C-alpha cells in the first residue's frame, strides 16, 4: 500500500473512532424530549409559526422567514457556483451565436425518440415545477426545488436536442441576468423592509405596500416573493452549470 493510503487509513480510523466514542453521549434516537427536539427554539417554531406567519409548512416558514438571511446566502452560494464555473472554464460568447445557427442541422442528427419524449415531458415538468414553487407554503417544495426542476427541463432539452437547442431558448447572458435578478429580488425585498424603517428582511412592514394584508399575511406573501427570487437564480444557474460542464465551457455541441 502506498504511504498516502496508510496515512489516510489512520486518519479515517481515528476520526471514526472519535465520532463513535461521542455517539454514546447522544440522547436516545427519536426521543421527542432530547435537547435538540425539545429546545425553546424548536418548540417556538412548531407552536408559534402558524400564528406569526400563517404558513403550514414549517420548513418553508423557518427557511424563508426566521432564517431568511441564511437562505439569501444559500441563493448567493448557487449564484457563486455558476459564476465560478463560467470563470474557471471560460466562456465562448463569440462562438455561441455561430453554434446556435448550426443548431438546425444538429437537431436533425439527434435521435427522434429522445426528442419526441422530451417534447412530451418538458411542458409537464415546467408546469409541475411552477406548482412546486407556488405550493411550497402548503406542501414539500418551494423556490429551490421548483427552480431545480425548471432548470432540469432546460437540461432535458439540451440532452435530447443538443445544447444549442437549449441555448436558443435560454442564452448564457440571459441566464446570468435571470440569476442576478433572482438574488436582487431576494435582497431587494430585504432592502425595501429597511427603507420602510425596519431591520433587513423584517417582512411584516411590507403590509404597507402589499394590498389587503396585515402584518402576518405580509410575511406570508413576502415569503412567496423571495421564493420566486430563489427559483429564478436556481433555474438559471442549474442550466449554466450543465451547459458549461457538458461543453467544457465552449457552449457548443454538448453530450
Amino acid at each position, binding site marked *: 500500500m502506498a504511504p498516502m493510503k496508510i496515512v489516510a487509513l489512520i486518519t479515517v480510523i481515528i476520526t471514526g473512532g472519535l465520532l463513535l466514542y461521542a455517539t454514546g453521549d447522544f440522547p436516545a434516537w*427519536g426521543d421527542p424530549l432530547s435537547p435538540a427536539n425539545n429546545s425553546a427554539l424548536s418548540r417556538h417554531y412548531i407552536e408559534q409559526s402558524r400564528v406569526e406567519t400563517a404558513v403550514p*409548512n414549517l*420548513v*418553508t416558514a423557518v427557511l424563508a422567514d426566521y432564517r431568511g438571511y441564511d437562505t439569501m446566502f444559500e441563493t448567493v452560494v448557487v449564484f457563486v457556483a455558476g459564476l465560478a464555473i463560467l470563470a474557471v472554464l471560460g466562456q465562448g460568447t463569440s462562438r455561441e451565436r455561430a453554434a446556435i445557427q448550426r443548431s438546425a442541422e444538429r437537431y436533425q442528427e439527434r435521435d427522434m425518440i429522445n426528442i419526441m419524449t422530451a417534447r412530451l415531458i418538458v411542458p409537464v415538468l415546467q408546469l409541475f415545477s411552477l406548482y412546486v414553487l407556488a405550493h411550497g407554503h402548503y406542501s*414539500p*417544495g*418551494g423556490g*429551490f*426545488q421548483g427552480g*431545480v*426542476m425548471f*432548470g*432540469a427541463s432546460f*437540461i432535458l432539452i439540451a*440532452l435530447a436536442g443538443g445544447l444549442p437547442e437549449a441555448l436558443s431558448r435560454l442564452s448564457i447572458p440571459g441566464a446570468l441576468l435571470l440569476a442576478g435578478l433572482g438574488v436582487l429580488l431576494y435582497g431587494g425585498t430585504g432592502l425595501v423592509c429597511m427603507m420602510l424603517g425596519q431591520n433587513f428582511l423584517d417582512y411584516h412592514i411590507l403590509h404597507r405596500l402589499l394590498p389587503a394584508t396585515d402584518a402576518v399575511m405580509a410575511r406570508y406573501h413576502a415569503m412567496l416573493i423571495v421564493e420566486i427570487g430563489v427559483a429564478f437564480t436556481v433555474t438559471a444557474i*442549474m442550466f449554466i*452549470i*450543465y451547459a458549461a*460542464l*457538458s*461543453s*467544457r465551457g465552449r457552449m457548443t455541441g454538448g*453530450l
Partner: protein
Amino acid sequence: MIAVFDICILIFLVAIAIIALSVKDLLASAMILGIYSFLMCLLWAEMGAVDVAFTEAAVGAGVSTVIMIATVYQTSRKSSD
C-alpha cells in the same frame, strides 16, 4: 419510522457507497452515485424530512448525476483505482 425499512436502506447505502468507489469505470461510478443519492432520499422521506428528501431527489439524484456524467464524458472514463 419503520425500523426494518430503515435498517435495510442503511445497509444498502454502505454497500453502494463502497461499490461506487471501487468500480474502475467512472461512468458507472457516477450512475451508482445517483442510486446512492436516491436511496438516501428514500431514507430521509421515511424519517419525515420530506423537504430534504425532495431536494435531494432533484439535486443529488438529478442534477449532480447529470453534471458528473457530463464531466466524465468530457474527460476520460477510465480510472486507475
